[in-house]
Protein backbone atom coordinates (compact mmCIF):
# COMPACT_ATOMS: atom_id res chain seq x y z
CA UNK A 1 0.00 0.00 0.00
CA UNK A 2 1.34 3.38 -0.93
CA UNK A 3 -0.30 5.43 1.78
CA UNK A 4 1.44 8.78 1.77
CA UNK A 5 -0.59 10.09 4.71
CA UNK A 6 1.43 7.89 7.06
CA UNK A 7 4.31 10.31 7.08
CA UNK A 8 2.60 13.65 7.67
CA UNK A 9 4.70 14.29 10.81
CA UNK A 10 7.89 13.75 8.79
CA UNK A 11 6.71 16.06 6.01
CA UNK A 12 6.20 18.68 8.68
CA UNK A 13 9.61 18.12 10.25
CA UNK A 14 11.46 18.12 6.93
CA UNK A 15 9.58 21.22 5.78
CA UNK A 16 10.31 22.99 9.04
CA UNK A 17 13.99 22.06 8.74
CA UNK A 18 14.19 23.59 5.25
CA UNK A 19 12.29 26.69 6.35
CA UNK A 20 14.56 27.21 9.35
CA UNK A 21 17.67 26.96 7.19
CA UNK A 22 16.08 29.35 4.67
CA UNK A 23 15.00 31.77 7.39
CA UNK A 24 18.55 32.01 8.65
CA UNK A 25 19.80 32.79 5.15
CA UNK A 26 17.05 35.30 4.34
CA UNK A 27 17.12 37.20 7.62
CA UNK A 28 20.68 36.97 8.91
CA UNK A 29 20.02 39.74 11.42
CA UNK A 30 17.26 37.87 13.17
CA UNK A 31 17.76 37.37 16.89
CA UNK A 32 19.73 34.16 17.06
CA UNK A 33 17.77 32.61 19.88
CA UNK A 34 14.60 32.88 17.82
CA UNK A 35 15.77 30.04 15.55
CA UNK A 36 16.11 27.79 18.59
CA UNK A 37 12.61 28.56 19.78
CA UNK A 38 11.21 28.04 16.27
CA UNK A 39 12.91 24.63 16.17
CA UNK A 40 11.55 23.72 19.58
CA UNK A 41 8.08 24.79 18.44
CA UNK A 42 8.38 22.76 15.25
CA UNK A 43 9.46 19.72 17.27
CA UNK A 44 6.49 20.09 19.62
CA UNK A 45 4.13 20.27 16.64
CA UNK A 46 5.89 17.20 15.20
CA UNK A 47 5.16 15.27 18.38
CA UNK A 48 1.63 16.65 18.40
CA UNK A 49 0.85 15.46 14.88
CA UNK A 50 2.33 12.07 15.74
CA UNK A 51 -0.24 11.70 18.55
CA UNK A 52 -3.02 11.39 15.94
CA UNK A 53 -1.59 7.99 14.97
CA UNK A 54 -2.05 6.45 18.42
CA UNK A 55 -3.91 3.15 18.47
CA UNK A 56 -4.43 3.15 14.74
CA UNK A 57 -3.96 -0.24 13.12
CA UNK A 58 -0.37 -0.95 12.18
CA UNK A 59 0.00 0.05 8.58
CA UNK A 60 3.10 -0.06 6.48
CA UNK A 61 4.28 1.77 3.40
CA UNK A 62 4.87 -1.10 0.96
CA UNK A 63 6.28 -3.12 3.83
CA UNK A 64 9.18 -0.70 4.15
CA UNK A 65 8.20 1.52 7.04
CA UNK A 66 5.49 0.64 9.47
CA UNK A 67 3.55 3.25 11.40
CA UNK A 68 2.17 1.80 14.62
CA UNK A 69 2.25 2.60 18.32
CA UNK A 70 5.95 1.70 18.47
CA UNK A 71 6.79 4.27 15.81
CA UNK A 72 4.53 6.82 17.48
CA UNK A 73 6.30 6.24 20.78
CA UNK A 74 9.67 7.09 19.25
CA UNK A 75 8.26 9.99 17.26
CA UNK A 76 7.04 11.61 20.47
CA UNK A 77 10.22 10.74 22.37
CA UNK A 78 12.37 12.14 19.55
CA UNK A 79 10.28 15.30 19.35
CA UNK A 80 10.75 15.87 23.08
CA UNK A 81 14.51 15.36 22.80
CA UNK A 82 14.76 17.80 19.89
CA UNK A 83 12.67 20.44 21.66
CA UNK A 84 14.79 20.34 24.82
CA UNK A 85 18.07 20.24 22.86
CA UNK A 86 17.02 23.25 20.78
CA UNK A 87 16.13 25.29 23.84
CA UNK A 88 19.42 24.38 25.52
CA UNK A 89 21.24 25.48 22.39
CA UNK A 90 19.58 28.90 22.36
CA UNK A 91 22.08 30.46 24.73
CA UNK A 92 24.87 27.94 24.42
CA UNK A 93 25.39 28.12 20.65
CA UNK A 94 24.80 31.83 20.33
CA UNK A 95 28.46 32.78 20.17
CA UNK A 96 30.03 29.44 19.38
CA UNK A 97 29.26 29.15 15.67
CA UNK A 98 28.77 31.46 12.71
CA UNK A 99 25.72 30.10 10.95
CA UNK A 100 23.08 28.41 13.07
CA UNK A 101 20.28 27.65 10.60
CA UNK A 102 21.82 24.34 9.58
CA UNK A 103 22.41 23.39 13.19
CA UNK A 104 18.72 23.59 14.01
CA UNK A 105 17.65 22.18 10.65
CA UNK A 106 19.86 19.14 11.16
CA UNK A 107 18.38 18.53 14.59
CA UNK A 108 14.98 18.07 12.96
CA UNK A 109 16.44 15.92 10.18
CA UNK A 110 18.09 13.73 12.81
CA UNK A 111 14.65 13.32 14.37
CA UNK A 112 13.32 11.98 11.07
CA UNK A 113 16.18 9.50 10.96
CA UNK A 114 15.31 8.40 14.49
CA UNK A 115 11.65 7.85 13.58
CA UNK A 116 12.40 5.85 10.46
CA UNK A 117 14.89 3.69 12.34
CA UNK A 118 12.05 2.84 14.73
CA UNK A 119 9.56 2.30 11.91
CA UNK A 120 11.68 0.49 9.33
CA UNK A 121 10.72 -3.08 8.46
CA UNK A 122 13.28 -3.50 5.72
CA UNK A 123 17.03 -3.53 6.14
CA UNK A 124 17.98 -1.03 3.44
CA UNK A 125 15.40 1.45 4.75
CA UNK A 126 16.70 0.92 8.27
CA UNK A 127 20.27 1.47 7.08
CA UNK A 128 19.44 4.70 5.26
CA UNK A 129 17.48 6.01 8.26
CA UNK A 130 20.48 5.17 10.41
CA UNK A 131 22.77 7.10 8.08
CA UNK A 132 20.41 10.09 8.06
CA UNK A 133 20.74 10.21 11.84
CA UNK A 134 24.50 9.56 11.79
CA UNK A 135 25.34 12.11 9.08
CA UNK A 136 23.42 14.78 10.97
CA UNK A 137 25.30 13.89 14.12
CA UNK A 138 28.73 13.94 12.41
CA UNK A 139 28.08 17.53 11.40
CA UNK A 140 26.49 18.59 14.68
CA UNK A 141 29.36 17.16 16.76
CA UNK A 142 31.84 19.26 14.81
CA UNK A 143 29.72 22.36 14.66
CA UNK A 144 31.94 24.66 16.71
CA UNK A 145 34.04 26.12 13.91
CA UNK A 146 37.06 27.35 15.77
CA UNK A 147 37.17 24.65 18.40
CA UNK A 148 39.89 22.06 17.83
CA UNK A 149 38.24 19.57 20.18
CA UNK A 150 35.04 19.78 18.20
CA UNK A 151 36.87 19.23 14.90
CA UNK A 152 38.80 16.29 16.27
CA UNK A 153 35.69 14.73 17.80
CA UNK A 154 33.82 14.84 14.52
CA UNK A 155 36.86 13.47 12.63
CA UNK A 156 37.06 10.47 14.91
CA UNK A 157 33.32 10.00 14.90
CA UNK A 158 33.00 10.07 11.11
CA UNK A 159 35.91 7.68 10.53
CA UNK A 160 34.78 5.14 13.10
CA UNK A 161 31.14 5.65 12.10
CA UNK A 162 31.91 4.92 8.46
CA UNK A 163 33.87 1.82 9.48
CA UNK A 164 30.93 0.59 11.59
CA UNK A 165 28.46 1.27 8.77
CA UNK A 166 30.56 -0.79 6.38
CA UNK A 167 30.65 -3.66 8.87
CA UNK A 168 26.88 -3.43 9.41
CA UNK A 169 26.28 -3.43 5.65
CA UNK A 170 28.49 -6.45 5.12
CA UNK A 171 26.47 -8.24 7.77
CA UNK A 172 23.25 -7.18 6.04
CA UNK A 173 24.56 -8.47 2.70
CA UNK A 174 25.29 -11.87 4.23
CA UNK A 175 21.87 -12.01 5.90
CA UNK A 176 20.38 -11.18 2.50
CA UNK A 177 22.38 -13.92 0.88
CA UNK A 178 21.30 -16.51 3.45
CA UNK A 179 17.62 -15.55 3.71
CA UNK A 180 16.98 -14.17 0.23
CA UNK A 181 15.29 -10.95 1.30
CA UNK A 182 15.84 -7.67 3.07
CA UNK A 183 12.32 -7.45 4.54
CA UNK A 184 12.26 -8.28 8.25
CA UNK A 185 9.37 -10.77 8.01
CA UNK A 186 10.74 -12.44 4.90
CA UNK A 187 14.14 -12.75 6.58
CA UNK A 188 12.48 -14.69 9.40
CA UNK A 189 10.83 -16.97 6.82
CA UNK A 190 14.06 -17.33 4.86
CA UNK A 191 16.07 -18.19 7.96
CA UNK A 192 13.41 -20.72 9.03
CA UNK A 193 13.50 -22.41 5.60
CA UNK A 194 17.19 -22.97 6.13
CA UNK A 195 16.23 -25.64 8.68
CA UNK A 196 17.86 -24.13 11.73
CA UNK A 197 21.33 -25.50 11.09
CA UNK A 198 24.22 -23.70 12.65
CA UNK A 199 25.84 -22.62 9.41
CA UNK A 200 28.80 -20.33 9.63
CA UNK A 201 27.46 -17.69 7.22
CA UNK A 202 24.40 -16.90 9.32
CA UNK A 203 26.46 -16.60 12.46
CA UNK A 204 29.00 -14.30 10.80
CA UNK A 205 26.18 -12.16 9.39
CA UNK A 206 24.49 -11.88 12.77
CA UNK A 207 27.76 -10.99 14.50
CA UNK A 208 28.54 -8.27 11.95
CA UNK A 209 25.04 -6.81 12.34
CA UNK A 210 25.39 -6.87 16.12
CA UNK A 211 28.76 -5.13 15.78
CA UNK A 212 27.31 -2.45 13.52
CA UNK A 213 24.30 -1.60 15.67
CA UNK A 214 26.39 -2.06 18.79
CA UNK A 215 28.57 0.76 17.54
CA UNK A 216 25.58 3.04 17.11
CA UNK A 217 24.43 2.52 20.69
CA UNK A 218 28.08 2.60 21.86
CA UNK A 219 28.22 -0.87 23.39
CA UNK A 220 31.68 -2.10 24.37
CA UNK A 221 33.93 -3.09 22.63
CA UNK A 222 32.58 -0.70 19.96
CA UNK A 223 32.38 2.29 22.30
CA UNK A 224 35.71 4.03 21.59
CA UNK A 225 34.13 6.90 19.69
CA UNK A 226 31.65 7.83 22.41
CA UNK A 227 33.85 9.56 25.00
CA UNK A 228 35.67 11.62 22.36
CA UNK A 229 32.54 12.61 20.50
CA UNK A 230 30.77 13.46 23.75
CA UNK A 231 33.64 15.58 24.99
CA UNK A 232 34.26 17.48 21.78
CA UNK A 233 30.63 18.13 20.88
CA UNK A 234 28.76 21.25 21.99
CA UNK A 235 26.99 20.50 25.30
CA UNK A 236 23.42 20.32 23.90
CA UNK A 237 24.63 17.95 21.19
CA UNK A 238 26.23 15.77 23.85
CA UNK A 239 22.77 15.54 25.38
CA UNK A 240 21.31 14.75 21.97
CA UNK A 241 23.94 12.09 21.25
CA UNK A 242 23.43 10.31 24.52
CA UNK A 243 19.64 10.25 24.19
CA UNK A 244 18.54 10.28 20.54
CA UNK A 245 21.17 7.98 19.05
CA UNK A 246 20.69 5.41 21.83
CA UNK A 247 16.89 5.53 21.60
CA UNK A 248 17.09 5.12 17.83
CA UNK A 249 19.60 2.29 18.04
CA UNK A 250 17.51 0.32 20.50
CA UNK A 251 14.33 0.97 18.51
CA UNK A 252 16.01 -0.55 15.45
CA UNK A 253 17.43 -3.48 17.44
CA UNK A 254 14.08 -4.24 19.06
CA UNK A 255 12.14 -4.30 15.82
CA UNK A 256 14.78 -6.18 13.84
CA UNK A 257 15.47 -8.81 16.46
CA UNK A 258 11.84 -9.48 17.38
CA UNK A 259 10.75 -9.69 13.73
CA UNK A 260 13.66 -11.47 12.08
CA UNK A 261 16.13 -13.10 14.38
CA UNK A 262 14.14 -14.28 17.38
CA UNK A 263 13.75 -17.84 16.05
CA UNK A 264 17.50 -18.17 15.65
CA UNK A 265 18.16 -16.80 19.11
CA UNK A 266 20.62 -19.52 20.03
CA UNK A 267 23.12 -18.12 17.52
CA UNK A 268 23.28 -14.62 18.91
CA UNK A 269 21.94 -14.47 22.47
CA UNK A 270 25.23 -15.43 24.06
CA UNK A 271 26.99 -12.68 22.12
CA UNK A 272 24.50 -10.05 23.31
CA UNK A 273 24.80 -11.27 26.90
CA UNK A 274 28.59 -11.07 26.62
CA UNK A 275 28.51 -7.62 25.09
CA UNK A 276 26.11 -6.50 27.85
CA UNK A 277 28.46 -7.66 30.61
CA UNK A 278 31.49 -6.15 28.91
CA UNK A 279 29.67 -2.86 28.33
CA UNK A 280 28.55 -2.57 31.95
CA UNK A 281 32.04 -3.39 33.20
CA UNK A 282 33.92 -1.06 30.83
CA UNK A 283 31.46 1.83 31.16
CA UNK A 284 31.31 1.85 34.92
CA UNK A 285 34.95 1.02 35.68
CA UNK A 286 36.48 3.54 33.29
CA UNK A 287 34.04 6.20 34.48
CA UNK A 288 35.72 5.96 37.89
CA UNK A 289 38.91 7.60 36.60
CA UNK A 290 37.45 10.47 34.59
CA UNK A 291 38.16 14.07 35.43
CA UNK A 292 36.07 15.60 32.66
CA UNK A 293 32.37 15.70 33.35
CA UNK A 294 31.34 15.08 29.72
CA UNK A 295 33.60 12.04 29.51
CA UNK A 296 32.26 10.79 32.81
CA UNK A 297 28.70 11.09 31.48
CA UNK A 298 29.82 9.32 28.29
CA UNK A 299 31.15 6.33 30.21
CA UNK A 300 28.16 6.28 32.53
CA UNK A 301 25.87 6.24 29.48
CA UNK A 302 27.88 3.32 28.10
CA UNK A 303 27.16 1.57 31.37
CA UNK A 304 23.45 2.33 30.93
CA UNK A 305 23.56 0.74 27.47
CA UNK A 306 24.88 -2.40 29.16
CA UNK A 307 21.77 -2.57 31.35
CA UNK A 308 19.53 -2.11 28.31
CA UNK A 309 21.30 -4.87 26.38
CA UNK A 310 20.29 -7.32 29.11
CA UNK A 311 16.75 -6.95 27.76
CA UNK A 312 17.86 -7.77 24.21
CA UNK A 313 19.56 -10.90 25.53
CA UNK A 314 16.33 -11.76 27.37
CA UNK A 315 14.47 -11.58 24.04
CA UNK A 316 16.68 -14.45 22.93
CA UNK A 317 16.50 -16.54 26.10
CA UNK A 318 12.84 -16.13 26.99
CA UNK A 319 9.68 -16.79 25.06
CA UNK A 320 7.23 -14.28 23.71
CA UNK A 321 5.81 -13.42 27.14
CA UNK A 322 9.25 -12.60 28.51
CA UNK A 323 10.06 -10.64 25.37
CA UNK A 324 6.96 -8.47 25.67
CA UNK A 325 7.52 -7.73 29.34
CA UNK A 326 11.21 -7.05 28.87
CA UNK A 327 10.73 -4.82 25.82
CA UNK A 328 8.13 -2.65 27.51
CA UNK A 329 10.42 -2.38 30.52
CA UNK A 330 13.20 -1.33 28.13
CA UNK A 331 11.03 1.44 26.67
CA UNK A 332 10.13 2.57 30.18
CA UNK A 333 13.80 2.62 31.12
CA UNK A 334 14.56 4.54 27.93
CA UNK A 335 12.05 7.24 28.91
CA UNK A 336 13.49 7.48 32.40
CA UNK A 337 17.04 7.58 31.05
CA UNK A 338 16.19 10.25 28.46
CA UNK A 339 14.47 12.45 31.03
CA UNK A 340 17.33 12.10 33.52
CA UNK A 341 19.98 12.81 30.88
CA UNK A 342 18.14 15.86 29.59
CA UNK A 343 17.68 17.14 33.16
CA UNK A 344 21.40 16.70 33.81
CA UNK A 345 22.37 18.55 30.63
CA UNK A 346 19.81 21.30 31.14
CA UNK A 347 21.41 22.05 34.48
CA UNK A 348 24.99 21.73 33.18
CA UNK A 349 24.36 23.91 30.12
CA UNK A 350 22.69 26.61 32.18
CA UNK A 351 25.58 26.53 34.65
CA UNK A 352 28.43 26.57 32.12
CA UNK A 353 26.72 29.27 30.04
CA UNK A 354 26.70 31.46 33.09
CA UNK A 355 30.11 30.69 34.53
CA UNK A 356 32.00 30.05 31.28
CA UNK A 357 33.96 27.23 32.90
CA UNK A 358 35.16 24.20 30.97
CA UNK A 359 33.56 20.84 31.59
CA UNK A 360 36.03 19.53 34.18
CA UNK A 361 34.47 18.12 37.32
CA UNK A 362 36.18 20.83 39.37
CA UNK A 363 34.20 23.35 37.34
CA UNK A 364 31.02 22.59 39.21
CA UNK A 365 32.56 23.08 42.65
CA UNK A 366 30.29 24.87 45.05
CA UNK A 367 27.29 24.80 42.78
CA UNK A 368 25.11 24.20 45.81
CA UNK A 369 25.95 27.74 46.88
CA UNK A 370 25.85 29.59 43.61
CA UNK A 371 22.82 27.87 42.14
CA UNK A 372 21.23 25.42 44.61
CA UNK A 373 18.33 24.52 42.33
CA UNK A 374 20.60 23.34 39.52
CA UNK A 375 22.66 21.38 42.03
CA UNK A 376 19.46 19.69 43.18
CA UNK A 377 18.52 18.78 39.62
CA UNK A 378 21.95 17.34 38.86
CA UNK A 379 21.77 15.32 42.07
CA UNK A 380 18.34 13.98 41.14
CA UNK A 381 19.54 13.03 37.64
CA UNK A 382 22.65 11.26 38.95
CA UNK A 383 20.65 9.40 41.62
CA UNK A 384 18.30 8.33 38.86
CA UNK A 385 21.25 6.96 36.81
CA UNK A 386 22.54 5.14 39.87
CA UNK A 387 19.11 3.69 40.54
CA UNK A 388 18.29 5.00 43.99
CA UNK A 389 14.69 4.52 45.16
CA UNK A 390 12.17 7.29 44.42
CA UNK A 391 14.13 8.31 41.32
CA UNK A 392 13.29 7.10 37.80
CA UNK A 393 16.28 4.77 37.45
CA UNK A 394 15.27 2.58 40.38
CA UNK A 395 11.78 1.69 39.19
CA UNK A 396 12.77 1.28 35.55
CA UNK A 397 15.82 -0.88 36.27
CA UNK A 398 13.77 -2.99 38.66
CA UNK A 399 11.16 -3.64 35.96
CA UNK A 400 13.83 -4.33 33.40
CA UNK A 401 15.81 -6.85 35.45
CA UNK A 402 12.67 -8.49 36.82
CA UNK A 403 11.31 -9.01 33.32
CA UNK A 404 14.65 -10.32 32.05
CA UNK A 405 15.24 -12.74 34.92
CA UNK A 406 15.72 -15.90 32.87
CA UNK A 407 17.81 -18.59 34.60
CA UNK A 408 20.65 -18.22 32.07
CA UNK A 409 20.75 -14.47 32.57
CA UNK A 410 20.83 -14.32 36.36
CA UNK A 411 24.60 -13.87 36.44
CA UNK A 412 24.34 -11.01 33.94
CA UNK A 413 21.77 -9.33 36.15
CA UNK A 414 24.06 -9.90 39.12
CA UNK A 415 26.83 -8.08 37.27
CA UNK A 416 24.37 -5.28 36.47
CA UNK A 417 23.51 -4.82 40.14
CA UNK A 418 27.17 -4.74 41.16
CA UNK A 419 27.83 -2.25 38.34
CA UNK A 420 25.03 -0.06 39.69
CA UNK A 421 26.74 0.06 43.08
CA UNK A 422 30.05 0.94 41.45
CA UNK A 423 28.36 3.72 39.50
CA UNK A 424 26.98 5.20 42.71
CA UNK A 425 30.57 5.87 43.76
CA UNK A 426 31.47 8.17 40.89
CA UNK A 427 28.09 9.87 40.90
CA UNK A 428 28.64 10.67 44.56
CA UNK A 429 32.08 12.08 43.71
CA UNK A 430 30.38 14.59 41.42
CA UNK A 431 27.74 15.42 44.02
CA UNK A 432 30.47 15.87 46.62
CA UNK A 433 32.13 18.53 44.45
CA UNK A 434 28.88 20.47 44.34
CA UNK A 435 27.97 20.30 48.00
CA UNK A 436 31.19 20.08 49.98
CA UNK A 437 33.46 22.61 48.24
CA UNK A 438 33.51 26.36 48.06
CA UNK A 439 32.84 27.90 44.64
CA UNK A 440 36.02 28.72 42.70
CA UNK A 441 36.88 31.70 40.57
CA UNK A 442 34.51 34.21 42.12
CA UNK A 443 31.28 32.71 40.81
CA UNK A 444 28.41 34.62 42.35
CA UNK A 445 24.93 33.39 43.09
CA UNK A 446 22.81 33.89 39.98
CA UNK A 447 19.24 33.56 38.78
CA UNK A 448 18.09 31.14 36.08
CA UNK A 449 16.47 32.23 32.81
CA UNK A 450 12.73 31.50 33.20
CA UNK A 451 12.50 29.07 30.27
CA UNK A 452 15.42 27.01 31.56
CA UNK A 453 13.81 26.98 35.00
CA UNK A 454 10.54 25.67 33.54
CA UNK A 455 12.24 22.89 31.54
CA UNK A 456 14.42 21.88 34.46
CA UNK A 457 11.39 21.70 36.74
CA UNK A 458 9.35 19.66 34.27
CA UNK A 459 12.22 17.19 33.84
CA UNK A 460 12.78 16.97 37.61
CA UNK A 461 9.08 16.21 38.12
CA UNK A 462 9.36 13.63 35.34
CA UNK A 463 12.21 11.86 37.15
CA UNK A 464 10.24 11.77 40.40
CA UNK A 465 6.98 10.79 38.69
CA UNK A 466 8.49 7.79 36.93
CA UNK A 467 10.37 6.88 40.10
CA UNK A 468 7.33 6.93 42.36
CA UNK A 469 4.44 6.05 40.09
CA UNK A 470 5.69 4.40 36.87
CA UNK A 471 2.41 2.60 36.05
CA UNK A 472 0.99 5.08 33.48
CA UNK A 473 4.24 5.29 31.51
CA UNK A 474 4.63 1.54 31.74
CA UNK A 475 1.19 1.06 30.21
CA UNK A 476 2.09 3.37 27.34
CA UNK A 477 5.32 1.45 26.79
CA UNK A 478 3.41 -1.82 26.97
CA UNK A 479 0.96 -0.82 24.25
CA UNK A 480 3.87 0.52 22.19
CA UNK A 481 5.62 -2.85 22.04
CA UNK A 482 2.50 -4.86 21.15
CA UNK A 483 2.89 -4.33 17.37
CA UNK A 484 6.38 -5.85 17.57
CA UNK A 485 4.95 -9.19 18.66
CA UNK A 486 1.90 -9.40 16.42
CA UNK A 487 2.77 -12.32 14.21
CA UNK A 488 2.50 -11.49 10.53
CA UNK A 489 0.81 -8.17 11.20
CA UNK A 490 1.58 -6.93 7.74
CA UNK A 491 3.84 -9.16 5.72
CA UNK A 492 5.91 -7.72 2.88
CA UNK A 493 4.68 -5.42 0.11
Amino acid sequence: MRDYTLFIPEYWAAGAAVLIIAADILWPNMRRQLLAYLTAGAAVVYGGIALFYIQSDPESFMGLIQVDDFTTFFRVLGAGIIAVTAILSANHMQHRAGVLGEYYGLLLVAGIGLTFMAGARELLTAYIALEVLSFSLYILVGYMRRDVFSAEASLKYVLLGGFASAILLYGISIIYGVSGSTFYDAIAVGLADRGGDADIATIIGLMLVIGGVGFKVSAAPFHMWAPDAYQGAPLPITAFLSTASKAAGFALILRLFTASFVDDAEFWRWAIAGVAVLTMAVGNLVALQQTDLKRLVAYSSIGQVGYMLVVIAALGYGGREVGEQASSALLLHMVGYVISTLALFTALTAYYDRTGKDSSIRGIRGMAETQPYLALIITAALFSFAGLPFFAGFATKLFMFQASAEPELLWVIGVAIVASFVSLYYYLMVIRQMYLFEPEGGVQRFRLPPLVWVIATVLLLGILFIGIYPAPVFEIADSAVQPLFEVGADISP
Partner: protein
Amino acid sequence: MVPVENYLALSGILFAIGVYGVLARRNAILVLMSIELMLNAVALNFVAFAVFMDPEQITGAVVAVFVITVAAAEVGLALAIVIRYFRMRATSNIDEAAALKW
Protein backbone atom coordinates in the same frame (compact mmCIF):
# COMPACT_ATOMS: atom_id res chain seq x y z
CA MET B 1 28.64 -18.83 -15.50
CA VAL B 2 31.18 -18.00 -12.84
CA PRO B 3 30.12 -19.73 -9.60
CA VAL B 4 28.93 -17.46 -6.82
CA GLU B 5 31.69 -18.64 -4.49
CA ASN B 6 34.25 -16.80 -6.57
CA TYR B 7 32.40 -13.53 -6.19
CA LEU B 8 32.02 -14.09 -2.46
CA ALA B 9 35.72 -14.87 -2.12
CA LEU B 10 36.63 -11.71 -4.01
CA SER B 11 34.28 -9.64 -1.88
CA GLY B 12 35.63 -11.25 1.28
CA ILE B 13 39.19 -10.41 0.23
CA LEU B 14 38.22 -6.82 -0.59
CA PHE B 15 36.49 -6.48 2.76
CA ALA B 16 39.48 -7.91 4.62
CA ILE B 17 41.86 -5.52 2.83
CA GLY B 18 39.54 -2.66 3.80
CA VAL B 19 39.48 -3.69 7.46
CA TYR B 20 43.25 -4.03 7.46
CA GLY B 21 43.58 -0.58 5.92
CA VAL B 22 41.32 1.04 8.50
CA LEU B 23 43.26 -0.53 11.34
CA ALA B 24 46.78 -0.09 9.94
CA ARG B 25 46.71 3.22 8.04
CA ARG B 26 47.29 6.38 10.02
CA ASN B 27 46.28 8.92 7.39
CA ALA B 28 42.63 9.91 7.55
CA ILE B 29 42.30 9.95 3.74
CA LEU B 30 43.70 6.42 3.46
CA VAL B 31 41.34 5.26 6.18
CA LEU B 32 38.48 6.70 4.14
CA MET B 33 39.69 4.87 1.03
CA SER B 34 39.81 1.64 3.02
CA ILE B 35 36.21 2.20 4.13
CA GLU B 36 35.31 2.65 0.46
CA LEU B 37 36.90 -0.71 -0.30
CA MET B 38 34.73 -2.31 2.36
CA LEU B 39 31.62 -0.71 0.88
CA ASN B 40 32.57 -1.94 -2.58
CA ALA B 41 32.84 -5.43 -1.16
CA VAL B 42 29.29 -4.99 0.16
CA ALA B 43 27.95 -3.86 -3.21
CA LEU B 44 29.64 -6.80 -4.95
CA ASN B 45 28.11 -9.17 -2.42
CA PHE B 46 24.63 -7.84 -3.03
CA VAL B 47 24.83 -8.05 -6.80
CA ALA B 48 26.35 -11.52 -6.70
CA PHE B 49 23.69 -12.84 -4.31
CA ALA B 50 20.88 -11.30 -6.34
CA VAL B 51 22.02 -12.85 -9.61
CA PHE B 52 22.77 -16.17 -7.96
CA MET B 53 19.39 -16.46 -6.22
CA ASP B 54 17.10 -15.21 -8.95
CA PRO B 55 18.31 -13.34 -12.05
CA GLU B 56 14.89 -11.64 -12.26
CA GLN B 57 15.09 -10.22 -8.76
CA ILE B 58 16.39 -6.66 -8.61
CA THR B 59 16.55 -6.13 -4.83
CA GLY B 60 20.27 -6.79 -4.74
CA ALA B 61 21.04 -4.38 -7.56
CA VAL B 62 18.86 -1.68 -5.99
CA VAL B 63 20.62 -2.08 -2.67
CA ALA B 64 23.99 -1.88 -4.44
CA VAL B 65 22.99 1.42 -6.07
CA PHE B 66 21.93 2.79 -2.70
CA VAL B 67 25.15 1.61 -1.07
CA ILE B 68 27.19 3.43 -3.71
CA THR B 69 25.12 6.60 -3.29
CA VAL B 70 25.33 6.63 0.49
CA ALA B 71 29.06 5.90 0.26
CA ALA B 72 29.52 8.93 -1.98
CA ALA B 73 27.64 11.13 0.48
CA GLU B 74 29.65 9.72 3.34
CA VAL B 75 32.96 10.41 1.63
CA GLY B 76 31.88 13.95 0.77
CA LEU B 77 31.00 14.62 4.37
CA ALA B 78 34.08 12.92 5.78
CA LEU B 79 36.43 14.75 3.41
CA ALA B 80 34.94 18.08 4.46
CA ILE B 81 35.56 17.19 8.09
CA VAL B 82 39.13 16.04 7.33
CA ILE B 83 39.86 19.25 5.42
CA ARG B 84 38.58 21.39 8.28
CA TYR B 85 40.71 19.45 10.72
CA PHE B 86 43.71 19.78 8.40
CA ARG B 87 43.27 23.56 8.25
CA MET B 88 43.32 23.77 12.01
CA ARG B 89 46.13 21.37 12.80
CA ALA B 90 48.02 21.08 9.47
CA THR B 91 47.92 17.30 9.70
CA SER B 92 45.62 14.49 8.66
CA ASN B 93 47.43 11.86 10.70
CA ILE B 94 44.93 10.37 13.09
CA ASP B 95 47.61 9.46 15.61
CA GLU B 96 48.26 13.14 16.10
CA ALA B 97 44.57 13.74 16.69
CA ALA B 98 45.10 13.24 20.38
CA ALA B 99 43.81 16.43 21.99
CA LEU B 100 41.08 14.13 23.20
CA LYS B 101 42.64 10.92 24.42
CA TRP B 102 41.26 8.00 22.41
